């Protein structure tokens, strides 16, 4: 599916949102948001003793009058938040035209949300590749080819930044341990948002005849009759997979949303907002 098929007008119309910020301070460059350290914002944070070189404008003269000690007012720093968008660009995300299109639109929605957040946003697609800076939402199109045989989440250490806001988009249809994967993604981050994107037939397949199932990422093939018991078993496994992700996210303080590819973009945006991944701009 050519990425140029993304209807940016529709995407912008559906995304009056920005990435939801946590209530705790976040890290980042000088910007609008209160940082974790001291800075030059108007919000008082603490006192400390005067040291030569301190800005005399921050000396609390009233306190010196009372105590004859030079104390300096410390203010919270103001930072621009860092956002790391992790996209799974493996072949499974382009399993069908619908899924590929939905993945592109969802990535574009998040790109617009990043832009609305006024944040230092980067896109991570593989452990070995340098993150790509997201200067404008349209830059997201360059990474949506979906030709990798491995998800970014299956590889090694991802180049996530400390205290960054992290948004992960994947179908998570690869063997994994959610209790290990989610904490790894959340480690040293300010927040973690997980978006699982699947087709409806991937979440709730219907019974079928005998089929040769071939893994789109080359992980083998099997012949089987997709009858009701087989479908029932599959659905139970998929439910366990999704539930384990949700539980791991809850324990880690992350947000989790399962989006079906067939869901209209506007409705998907509201779903993300409802789960706290996005918030009104």
């Amino acid at each position, binding site marked *: 599916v050519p990425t140029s098929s993304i209807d940016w007008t529709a995407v912008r119309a559906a995304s009056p949102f920005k990435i939801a910020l946590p209530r705790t301070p976040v890290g980042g460059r000088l910007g609008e948001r209160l940082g974790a350290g001291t800075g030059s914002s108007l919000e008082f944070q603490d006192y400390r003793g005067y040291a030569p070189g301190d800005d005399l404008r921050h000396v609390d003269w009233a306190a010196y009058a009372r105590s004859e000690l030079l104390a300096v007012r410390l203010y919270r720093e103001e930072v621009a938040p860092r956002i790391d968008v992790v996209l799974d660009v493996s072949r499974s995300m382009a399993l069908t035209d619908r899924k590929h299109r939905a993945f592109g639109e969802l990535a574009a929605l998040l790109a617009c949300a990043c832009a609305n957040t006024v944040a230092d946003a980067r896109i991570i697609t593989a452990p070995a590749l340098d993150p790509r800076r997201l200067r404008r939402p349209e830059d997201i199109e360059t990474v949506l080819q979906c030709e990798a045989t491995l998800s970014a989440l299956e590889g090694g250490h991802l180049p996530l930044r400390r205290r960054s806001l992290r948004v992960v988009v994947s179908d998570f249809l690869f063997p994994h341990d959610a209790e290990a994967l989610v904490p790894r993604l959340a480690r040293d981050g300010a927040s973690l948002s997980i978006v699982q994107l*699947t087709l409806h037939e991937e979440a709730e397949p219907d019974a*079928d005849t005998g089929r040769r199932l071939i893994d789109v990422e080359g992980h083998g093939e*099997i012949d089987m009759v997709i009858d009701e018991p087989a479908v029932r078993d599959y659905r139970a496994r998929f439910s366990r997979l999704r539930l384990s992700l949700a539980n791991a996210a809850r324990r880690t303080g992350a947000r989790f949303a399962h989006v079906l590819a067939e869901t209209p973009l506007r409705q998907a945006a509201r779903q993300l907002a409802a789960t706290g991944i996005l918030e009104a701009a």
Partner: protein
Amino acid sequence: MTFATPLGLLALVAVPAIVAIHLFRRRYPVRRVAGLFLWQNPRQTPVEGRRRDRLPITTSLILECLAATALALILAGARLSSADIDRHLVVLLDDSASMAAVDAQGISARDRAARRIRSEVERLGASARVTLVVSGERPSVLAGPAAFAVEAQAALNNWQPQAAHHSLALGVRLARELAGTDGKLMIVSDLMPAARGEEEVPGALWASVGEALANVGIIAAERTLSPDRGQGTVSLTLGNYAGAPQSRRVVVSAGGKDIVTRYLNVPPGSSSVALPIPPGLPPVRVALSDDALGRDNSVVLAEPRPRIVAVDNRLKEGRGREALANALAAVSGITRAEQSHLVFVDGGDLDRPGDPGTWRAGFGRPPEKWRTAGAPRDFVGPFLLEKRHPLLLGVTLGGVVWAGVSPLAASAVHPLASAGDQALIGLRSASSAGESPAFLFNVDLDSTNLIRAPDWPIVISNIVEMRRHGLPGPERWNYRVGEWIRAGLGRDPKAALRSRSGGVERAIPAGQRIEIIAPSPGGLLEILEGDDVLFELGVNFLDETEGDLRRQTTADTGSLADGSDLRADAGVTSDPLFWVLLATAGLAIMANWCLLPASRVHG
């Protein structure tokens, strides 16, 4: 529907093979998935194979089975028309032993015949039917009737001619019946009809495939024993059909050991040679050195063990007793003993019970009880003789005055010779199991001239030979192939009777007498009772006609009626079914490999 090569139907095993492949390794439509691991469970079907499950009737399976069936039918030469029945060739094979004669290159007329028949069958095409008839005294069908070419070929490969000389007339008659109105008749021999003494067969192709060759063979053989001299003799009659003297080595061997070796210079025509051998040897093999026809180069001869008939002359002193003694002196193979097989007594003693196993011949007035009222009469003829009775073989009674004939009751004897209503010679058959037959010669030996007539020693010899015939043992010990072998046991058999010759065993009907035909190809013939060997007999191919190979020739006469018919449309491609099957197979294969892959891909 007919099949030119039914063996091609074996290719139909491809159909169950395809079904098995589909059953155990299905070619399901492809469905690409993102999380294969979520589908994997113990119910999955591995790619390498699977156990029993319901067979899905897929388009691929139907097309593959259709293609396999069509190809198998093509291989089997399936035809809609039965036109090939018209191409029915009936071949009469001359089974004479001369067909096995080989030339200097080792090629026999049989080889040339097989090659000729093969070429004729190839001309007819693989779908033609062939019937092979083997000639002989009892013609038989070697392949067919109306066998397929491959079957006929296999039968032809196993055919080995070895029969003695015989007429082909019976074989021609059988072949004509098998050919019917549509079949073509071909006769394959090594002689042309005139040379073989046969009439030409109208409407048939007579193919002579022989070659004139020089040959020396044994045309008669006998083994005798002289107890007096304590020596045995092998007498051979050799036939030289080369037109010039030939040198041959003759070897007499027994039990794998050579007894006599002699080099002979055999003159053209027939010649005899006698080879002395020690007495008491087991059956000996006499072999000439090899030449064109190997069939007549060896014989197996068993040592004769003559059946001695013990006789006792109990006639009263007189001319009759003396004449009987003189006649018995001229008969060989008899001995005098009181415990005898045959006794000559006065006719009046015949009403007394005889000894078991002892035949009696009574001369003179019959017993009182057998006679009726009336005076004895003389007869000079005419005499009515039952000439087929062995007692009267060669007997004419010409010029005989049969004197002293007493009138007999009608049921006293079974008349073998009579004059008017008077029985001259009668047979008193055994009335009970233990009683032996008795012959009555209703004649007065003192007054008849029978004892001076030539019939007298003949009738005495006949009666002795009849008795000899009833003794246990075979009539002779060496036979020609095809001769009747008759032997008596003198008792009921204790176990199953069998004959064994050349490793082939045949059952013999149980009874006190054995009658079998000397089997071909001959050699040592053993008569077995259970596991015991009763008799060892020699059976040999002794045929002067088959040994003469000078008239053999290669030529044809006659024709296969309408030969053009035989050559037309011989191939399977002439039948429309061939093209239908070919198109079906091709389309099925194309559809399976071109159309199905697109429809198999799922989503």
